């Protein structure tokens, strides 16, 4: 019981303790949701064959995370504990539907290319994780900021993988050809699924080397 309370407090102070700037920095770099917690990896791989798709998806995550953080935090003292999870899912799904309808109305081609992955933000563990771990215990604006920070951290990783995959897999960046004349052949493997897994594996390795995680003793 008491350890539970202490742990809560630990999480509170650990994530910035009311200071916006730390919250922002933590989300983008220190506890980046993808590389440090390996959350939300599904969409991170699926939408990174082109940078444009990755940026739209990053934008979607920033929007959904920020709004979910705000609303969950506003409602945090009214939500009955027993149905908390399903309430959060409903809130997340509402904002995902909003973003999806927006894409369909104004950027239909992009919505077609992203296929089911916008809808799959609902089951993206980052959103649920932040709502549960941060928004239920912090004031609304700070929770919104935490959402933006985690969304940006997610978008950054997506952009890195996408730049790499689009250049090597497709020879273009944001649709402009950049490999023509350099003598480097494009490698279709990177545009396809295996390239995504391998690129993500190397990225995680690289970032873990730069910034070693605390528990490296896990079995492989």
């Amino acid at each position, binding site marked *: 019981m008491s350890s539970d309370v202490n742990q809560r407090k630990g999480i509170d102070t650990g994530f910035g303790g009311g200071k916006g700037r730390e919250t922002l920095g933590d989300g983008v770099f220190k506890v980046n949701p993808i590389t440090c917690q*390996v*959350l*939300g*990896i*599904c*969409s991170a*791989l*699926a939408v990174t064959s082109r940078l444009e798709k990755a940026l739209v998806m990053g934008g979607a995550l920033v929007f959904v995370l920020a709004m979910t953080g705000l609303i969950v935090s506003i409602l945090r003292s009214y939500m009955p504990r027993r149905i908390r999870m*399903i309430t959060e*899912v*409903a809130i997340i*799904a*509402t904002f*995902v*539907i909003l973003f*999806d*309808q927006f894409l369909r109305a104004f950027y239909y081609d992009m919505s077609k290319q992203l*296929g*089911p992955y916008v*809808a*799959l933000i*609902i*089951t*993206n*563990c980052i959103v*649920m994780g932040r709502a549960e771990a941060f928004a239920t215990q912090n004031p609304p604006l700070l929770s919104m900021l935490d959402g933006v920070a985690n969304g940006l951290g997610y978008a950054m990783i997506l952009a890195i993988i996408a730049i790499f995959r689009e250049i090597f897999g497709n020879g273009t960046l944001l649709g402009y050809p950049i490999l023509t004349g350099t003598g480097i052949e494009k490698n279709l*493997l990177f545009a*396809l*699924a*295996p*390239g*995504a*897994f*391998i690129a*993500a*594996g*190397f990225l*995680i*390795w690289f970032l*873990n*080397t730069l910034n*070693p995680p605390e528990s*490296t003793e*896990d*079995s*492989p």
Partner: protein
Amino acid sequence: MNSTPVFVIFVASIFTNNILLASFLGMCSFLVCSNRIDTAFGLGAAVTFVMLFTTMIDYLIYHYVLIPLKLEFLSYIIFIAVIAAFVQFVEMFVERFSPKLYYALGIFLPLITVNCAILGASLFMVLRKYNFAQSTFFGLGSGIGWALAIALMAGLREKMGYSNVPARLRGPGIVMLVTGIIAMAFMGFAGMLKLQ
């Protein structure tokens, strides 16, 4: 309407269009639960079961309730509610009638609600305009495909325990690299059958 034969959909969703290796769905539980081969089989079986039935239920709800009422935009929220309710129902049902199965499968059931492969199968079913028979076989095939992928990975990871993986690559890093190689092998089936 999509006119692909059901058998093609079934085989393609296991091999060439594997929901994990080609569409990247269900990675979270794949990374976390592929340590031991019996856990992987249990989770794979639970996913296959839930995916088969939720795809069927979602098909019926989408085509006979949401389309007549012109509420297609609510499909995401309805699908996730169906999945959550179905998992809850199965959990209670299995606990009541087969305690043995409950202990084997029970711990995996709550994990499945947040498995994006389940929701993904329903979304693909809508996007690709499958009919009821096609949806059923797509759900079943995708579930088997996911179970196959996680079982393969768990087998490899048990062996990998004896090898000297660089310290910083351990955990998710090496799993991603190995998954990439498995995905490459599965791409070899692509010449055989193709969905779209």
